[in-house]
């Protein structure tokens, strides 16, 4: 960095300046930022529990507390008055001294039984007030974007759907970029005729791979299954352990190979890593992606996390192709050759010198990838495949609208949310393509 500062030129600065010239893209970047803020603050923007409440002298912050919390309310003489169970209390019927409601005073999955059957945003909405009478909803408690068939608030659903959509983009493309950048870098840097190792080492690596898979995944399959049935976190820990076993086995066998000294087996041989990766990309590209995802979701459990993982592991090919192409170009540049001639290890050359200079075009591919991941997820939830029914997403809301065309608000608002998010990502991707890589400019 310091050398770049001396010459007062940095590629990052240049690219940012280029990007800023595109005013629409800049607006999109701000919009994306506000979407992220919206997603992070979703539980405080749309919540049926008040943000702050002064109840019988107690100061409560129900929206910030965990759902399972209970509070005991005592009378002034110290006798127990009532017990507030946060998840089942009907907060609207309580007699507060002072209360601050969330901007949207509904949670996404609670059913308002007075406003069932597709209540329109402008239509008559009913409300049960503190005295238990059914009246017209006061404007504070109106469902501003209407409700669905079982009385869930659309606005709350949209806000929380933002969370899921952004998560899908982030998690799935995170997985895809890890796989894609790693494989693409290997393939591009080594090609077919650069990764050399003694034959014996090559064979032992393969044997190590076999044993690693056997002990890491074959032998641990019940541990893995138990882990995942206990929840995504423990499953992930088990998975990490398995991968650790795999890596250890490979390292061990590579080490063992040094102990064997047979001249004939010491000959250097090429590992055609580029062929492996390119064939893998070709294979994955030749299967219609949506069909592949749908087929896999049909045989695994229904879970939003699994959908994200599947989108990720089927979506790395574009990233790998870009990384590979970029590293093919970079590996013949002077600074990489300098690093190699200084005797740096391949690992250091790739990850410290070559890869950081190759990431700009990859970033574009990731941005486009996020848009398509969001599109796929909302398509799946629109069809009701893969994502569990109790999770409210933009796609599932739109699906409710399709089933009842009279509820136009269930079509327009979720659809626009999906459309706007995808447009934002596509715009940012296009603009950063123009900024980062003028060669690709269309």
């Amino acid at each position: 960095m310091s050398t770049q500062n001396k010459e007062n030129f940095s590629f990052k600065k240049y690219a940012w300046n280029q990007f800023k010239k595109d005013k629409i893209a800049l607006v999109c970047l701000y919009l994306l930022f506000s979407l992220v803020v919206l997603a992070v603050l979703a539980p405080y923007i749309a919540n049926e529990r008040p943000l702050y409440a002064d109840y019988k002298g107690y100061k409560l912050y129900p929206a910030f507390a965990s759902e399972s919390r209970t509070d005991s309310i005592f009378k002034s003489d110290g006798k127990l008055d009532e017990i507030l169970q946060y998840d089942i209390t009907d907060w609207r019927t309580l007699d507060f001294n002072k209360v601050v409601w969330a901007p949207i005073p509904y949670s996404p999955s609670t059913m308002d039984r007075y406003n069932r059957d597709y209540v329109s945003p402008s239509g008559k909405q009913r409300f049960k007030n503190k005295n238990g009478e059914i009246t017209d909803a006061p404007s504070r408690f109106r469902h501003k974007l209407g409700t669905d068939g079982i009385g869930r608030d659309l606005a709350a659903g949209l806000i929380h759907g933002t969370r899921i959509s952004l998560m899908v983009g982030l998690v799935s493309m995170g997985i895809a970029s890890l796989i894609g950048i790693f494989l693409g870098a290997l393939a591009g840097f080594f090609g077919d005729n650069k990764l050399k190792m003694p034959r014996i080492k090559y064979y032992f690596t393969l044997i190590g791979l076999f044993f690693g898979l056997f002990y890491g995944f074959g032998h641990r399959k019940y541990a893995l299954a138990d882990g995942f049935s206990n929840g995504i976190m423990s499953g992930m820990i088990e998975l990490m352990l398995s991968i650790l076993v795999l890596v250890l086995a490979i390292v061990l066998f590579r080490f063992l190979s040094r102990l064997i000294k047979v001249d004939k087996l010491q000959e250097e041989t090429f590992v055609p890593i580029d062929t492996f990766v390119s064939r893998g990309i070709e294979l994955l590209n030749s299967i219609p992606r949506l069909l592949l995802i749908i087929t896999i979701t049909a045989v695994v459990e229904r879970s939003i996390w699994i959908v994200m993982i599947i989108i990720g592991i089927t979506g790395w090919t574009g990233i790998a192709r870009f990384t590979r192409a970029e590293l093919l170009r970079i590996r013949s540049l002077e600074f990489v050759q300098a690093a190699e001639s200084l005797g740096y290890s391949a690992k250091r050359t790739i990850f410290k010198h070559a890869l950081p200079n190759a990431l700009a075009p990859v970033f574009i591919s990731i941005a486009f990838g996020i848009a398509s991941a969001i599109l796929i997820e909302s398509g799946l939830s629109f069809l009701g495949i893969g994502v569990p029914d109790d999770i409210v997403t933009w796609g599932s809301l739109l699906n409710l609208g399709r089933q009842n065309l009279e509820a136009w608000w269930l079509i327009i608002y979720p659809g626009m949310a999906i459309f706007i998010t995808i447009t934002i990502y596509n715009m940012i991707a296009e603009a950063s393509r123009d900024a980062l890589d003028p060669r690709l400019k269309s």
Partner: protein
Amino acid sequence: MLKYTIERVLTFIPMLIAISLLSFVISINAPGDPVERLAKSAESEGSAQEQSGASKKIKAELRKKLGLDLPIFYFSVSNLSTSDTLYRIQDKYHKATLEHLTHKSGNWAKVSDYYKELLSLQKVHMKLNSKDIFESQTELELNTINEAVNQVGFEINNLLETSEEELIDLSFSKIDDKLSNFSFLSSLNSSFENVKKYKNEINISEDKWRTYVPKINWYGSKNQYHLWLFGNGKDRKGLLRGDFGISYIDSQPISTKIWQKIGISFSLSLISILLAYLISIPIGIYSAHKKDSAVDKGFSLVLFILYSMPSFFVGTLLLLQFANPDNLAWFPVSGIQDPTLFDPEWSFWTKIKHRMPFLILPIITYTYGSFAFLSRIMRVGMIDVVSQDYIRTARAKGLGEKKVILKHALRNSLLPIITVFAAIFPMAIGGSIIIEVIFSIPGMGVEVYNSILNYDYPMIITVFTISGFLTMLGYLVADILYAVVDPRISYK
């Protein structure tokens, strides 16, 4: 050229094998037992005893027919403790139990003893007849006896299907309880003691190390994958000869079901792709020609927005606007024909005329996505071509602008969009699931959708395999066509 073609075809074969392996792996991991599902639809009536005997026979036959009595693949990797005959056990759940128990103890012989004893316990239990017991004694009521017998049977079944220590202990204690309370169950005693003994032996066996030693079993060509792919020369013809198996829903051959539905999906995708080409090529040419003009910028923005519109949103919006009595009811909401009016005797044109209103909205939805995409590609390709030297030469020698663009530039800029045409065959078989579901078009997309909702795995896997195959074929043909059409492309 020939060498390139041959090389390309040769790489095609391992890819096909890879696709078939991928779909096979997915299909054997599908949850549930196909035999149970197929047997359910073929179940005969009769008393409980008869029925279980008959259904067992049906199940065994089905298992044989589906090849489930065979090992899964040519070889398998397991460990020293497991038996290479495990695949012969019929029940999928029993198999899983045994596998897990062996994994925990490392001693297949003991587990096998335990399993056999459990089966014989079940057999003895089957022979118990509540009525006979009721008649042979006087103290207990028929209901109590029935309940006790059923409870024990239930627990034995549980034991066969669980490998968790806590659940096994629970079942043991429950059976113990029943055996000590009811003397009429005494015939089960000896067998049950044996079961407990064997279970205990499993627990104390110290062969866990055996699970850490890998073992490779070789089965040869008599396996499920081989059968699925090549058939057995008798009742199964194999995937390669067009036998895709039978549907779990109605036991119909998959190929028949596909042939019934593919026509509509194919014609829809063909029409929409052609339309997309017809619209996008002129737009692409025009905006490339007038690059950076207001019209070009306008087109670019509109195309960009269309490109970002999800097709399911557009489809639903069209329905909301044009097939909705509240707004404009110009088109029918769903289907491809009015069943009350439609007459299969009609001539071809009458049928088309009748179906037209049903198809307009789907075709619009189908077309717009690929049209935005194609126009953008076309524009970029055209801009690229127009800046080439030979176009400058053509202009320099005084050719009219029209001729330069339409004759010299157009042909070369068409190349990139050839590839897209290759995608229409897989699109036909997979159908556009989302669009067909929105408009309820009875094509392949809806078929796939329904088979997913009903867990009809043979159908899903078949569609998956065929569309992978067709996509690869499309790429192959496109690549070769490329090489034929464009002499500049040299494949080394």
